[in-house]
């Protein structure tokens, strides 16, 4: 750590993640785009332009923007009161509630889709609303997913918000509403805008929910890419849409990056939460409603999984050891669900260590102090580069991997490592976002002090960094594990027939007619949700604030 220039060290640390990202991310995405823009080996964007001017494309685009905007607005509207209630009020059990709220966010998208269909379907508890298969259902599911993002991101900012400006305003005669409008909201605006843009991003690239809830009638750009590739084999169209999405999302991501709340206030104030007053009732009611809204789909899912043609029972769970019922007595699946669960867990383990290895390197690279303008520029560039997977749709990634890795040198399609690699890339930004703030928060003078007292570089890491970082590392690993368990977009392209993951199996089961298959899908969803929830609750116990706050 005594080098004059950090550049050589920087390059050494960055080379592995950059290479991995280049091969498994940039190359596939570029290949996917090339397929659309260079259809016959020559540059010919007319096909792509054609796709973009199709009437259906316009509809898809409009639907994407409209549902994403509605989902974002809904998440913010419901998330803000909950953020305040759970982060500023001394409510008993609020930690548990905060942890439970994170569960929907990592629930496998397919599971959420199934849960909402179960809830809103004709025979569901809310079937009378007639919302099944409508855009409202899609938006509701998007809000269900993302309200936790708002609660965590804004809640964390709210919790570390110095209470004194608000008190000063109140002492100057501002009513609680005026305090909120003139002091608190301006202070929270960066966090709100940043959470809003991330939620918009998640909504716009949502795949599993829209596919299960929107069907063929309502498609977003993401599901349209999937349909064009897998059902219609219209690669040009898919590439054109991917390109469009890439441009829009990259722009949005850059905007979010700029707006992200900079931790300018180095000192972390954690405001003392105050006791509940009668005047808090409206916000408590909103919070209760949101919690109920989050719990209902999950409860319906569990109830549905226990319902069998002959009353309540565990038959659907018992059936998980089978391959379901298909036409002519053959199974709906190539392997039993239990085997898929083993595959899922094994894949998640692989994806987790890959994401952690890459994520740790990236986090160290982007947070070390730069010693010159060139170095700072390189670091900033790398930071943005590693965030790319957050913005590029998993479908594009999966499809890109599928089409580029088939030629000669890099034929990894048959490799059992391909799915974990793709999932690791999807989880990478979340890992980096969890670790980077923690590493950046370590005062470099601590390292300098250790060094000046005679500690070598490794010793310094062990003494200064490790005690601060081990919990966030565990938390990030758990988070990556959960994300990998639920990953569907990229996996749906890359899985091998003989080794599908649970989300893939669930999607296949709900696509096959037969009461037994649907019950099995519900049971499998419950199992997957349960495993994911356990992982997330364990992560939450570590109390790492940067988890899930982007």
């Amino acid at each position: 750590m005594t080098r004059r220039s950090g550049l050589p060290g920087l390059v050494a640390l960055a080379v592995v993640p950059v290479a991995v990202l280049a091969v498994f991310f940039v190359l596939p995405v570029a290949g996917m785009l090339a397929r659309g823009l260079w259809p016959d080996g020559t540059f010919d964007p007319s096909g792509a332009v054609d796709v973009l001017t199709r009437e259906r494309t316009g509809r898809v685009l409009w639907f994407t923007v409209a549902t994403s905007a509605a989902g974002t607005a809904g998440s913010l509207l419901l998330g803000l009161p909950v953020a305040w209630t759970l982060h500023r009020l001394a409510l008993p059990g609020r930690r548990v509630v905060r942890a439970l709220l994170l569960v929907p966010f990592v629930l496998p998208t397919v599971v959420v889709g199934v849960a909402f269909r179960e809830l809103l379907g004709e025979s569901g508890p809310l079937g009378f609303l007639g919302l099944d298969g409508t855009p409202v259902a899609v938006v509701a599911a998007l809000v269900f997913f993302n309200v936790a993002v708002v609660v965590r991101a804004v809640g964390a900012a709210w919790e570390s918000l110095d209470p004194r400006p608000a008190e000063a305003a109140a002492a100057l005669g501002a009513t609680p509403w005026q305090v909120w409008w003139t002091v608190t909201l301006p202070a929270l605006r960066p966090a709100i805008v940043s959470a809003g843009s991330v939620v918009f991003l998640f909504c716009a690239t949502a795949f599993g929910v829209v596919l299960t809830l929107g069907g063929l009638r309502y498609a977003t750009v993401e599901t349209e890419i999937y349909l064009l590739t897998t059902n219609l084999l219209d690669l040009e169209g898919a590439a054109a849409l991917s390109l469009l999405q890439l441009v829009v999302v990259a722009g949005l991501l850059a905007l979010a990056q700029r707006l992200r709340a900079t931790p300018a206030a180095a000192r972390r104030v954690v405001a003392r939460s105050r006791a509940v007053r009668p005047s808090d009732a409206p916000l408590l009611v909103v919070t209760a409603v949101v919690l109920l809204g989050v719990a209902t789909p999950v409860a319906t899912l569990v109830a549905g999984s226990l319902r069998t043609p002959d009353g309540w029972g565990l038959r659907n769970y018992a059936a998980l050891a089978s391959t379901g019922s298909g036409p002519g007595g053959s199974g709906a699946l190539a392997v039993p669900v239990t085997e898929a669960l083993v595959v899922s867990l094994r894949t998640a383990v692989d994806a987790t260590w890959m994401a952690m290895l890459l994520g740790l390197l990236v986090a160290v690279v982007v947070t070390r102090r730069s010693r010159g303008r060139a170095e700072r520029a390189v670091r900033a560039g790398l930071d943005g580069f590693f965030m790319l997977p957050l913005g590029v749709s998993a479908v594009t990634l999966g499809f890109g991997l599928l089409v580029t890795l088939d030629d000669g040198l890099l034929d990894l399609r048959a490799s059992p490592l391909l799915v974990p690699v793709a999932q690791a890339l999807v989880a990478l930004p979340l890992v980096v976002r969890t670790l980077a703030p923690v590493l950046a928060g370590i005062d470099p003078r601590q390292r300098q002090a250790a060094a000046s007292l005679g500690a070598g570089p490794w010793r310094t890491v062990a003494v200064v960094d490790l005690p601060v970082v081990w919990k966030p590392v565990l938390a990030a690993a758990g988070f990556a594990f959960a994300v990998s368990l639920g990953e569907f977009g990229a996996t749906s392209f890359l899985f091998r027939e003989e080794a599908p993951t649970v989300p893939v199996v669930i999607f296949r089961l709900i696509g096959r007619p037969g009461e037994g298959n649907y019950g099995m899908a519900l049971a499998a969803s419950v199992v997957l949700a349960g495993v994911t929830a356990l992982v997330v609750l364990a992560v939450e116990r570590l109390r790492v604030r940067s988890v899930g706050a982007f």
Partner: protein
Amino acid sequence: MLSLSGVSVAYDGVDAVVDVSLDVPAGEVLAVLGASGCGKSTLLRAVAGLEAPRSGTVVADGEDVTRVPTHRRGFALMFQDGQLFGHLTVARNVAYPLRLRRRPAAETAARVAELLELVGLVGYGDRLPGTLSGGEQQRVALARALAVRPRLLLLDEPLSALDAGLRERLAGDLRRILVEAGTTAVLVTHDHEEAFAVADRMALMRAGRVVQHGPVADVWGAPVDAEAALFLGYARVLDGARAAAVLAAAGRPGASAVALRRSALRVEPAGALAGTVVSAAATPDQVRLVADVEGLGRLDAVGGPGLAAARVPAPGAAVRLDVDPARLAPLRRARG
């Protein structure tokens, strides 16, 4: 104007303020003086309505405001570090309470100009708080607090965040501004000099209780016990025979203990006490020395007017010392 009776505040069951009763007449400034953690800021927050007292009442102008929310009390609170709103300009910060009350724009602008002049910041209206020095920020915070002529101004260590020289200058300004505006104010501080410079009355707090209160001169001239005396800037406390000797030399009636300021003993050729110099040092204003005084032990002393800095007595030299009766305070009891 402000009347506290039996106010107690507890945080999570731990008492921070215990049974405090105080009165502040209209137009006067009360300084609540105490070490950090003594509960003085909590008391201020309770007066402001930011903490709910466990028991006791807060009465302002004859109206019980104990259960009135902060924003309806008509007070203003100024924090140690100003707490200016960083996203608003200086003028907008000062205008904030006026705009809350929807005063006409012209009236607001005129009042802001008047206030900026009062605190000596004419022409600063368009600056952002981040570009101001600490002292300037405190002036803006003061102007903002005074904007709507609050019936009570609460000041939480208003000068503590500033460096020494600035603090002294600003304390004088603060006194002038408060008197000119005729504001009733409660000032919380751990700095006795700040309290002397700004306040009319003083309340000394320790472990959540008020141990002494009254006009500044009264409290200063007769600390209730040794700890209070030391907190008020007295250098040493003597008791028993040594107290009697000093008081006799000063020509004052006897007491069980006496607190001496640093300058209570002065080198004087015809002084009543004899001693030998232990150490001596010249400061820009006077010569300071420690002397071993016969029958009294080691005490602080200063050089008299005749003792120029060039003639600092050497250790071991014999000196005669006189006691300045105005610079000592007889104590009713030695221990608190």
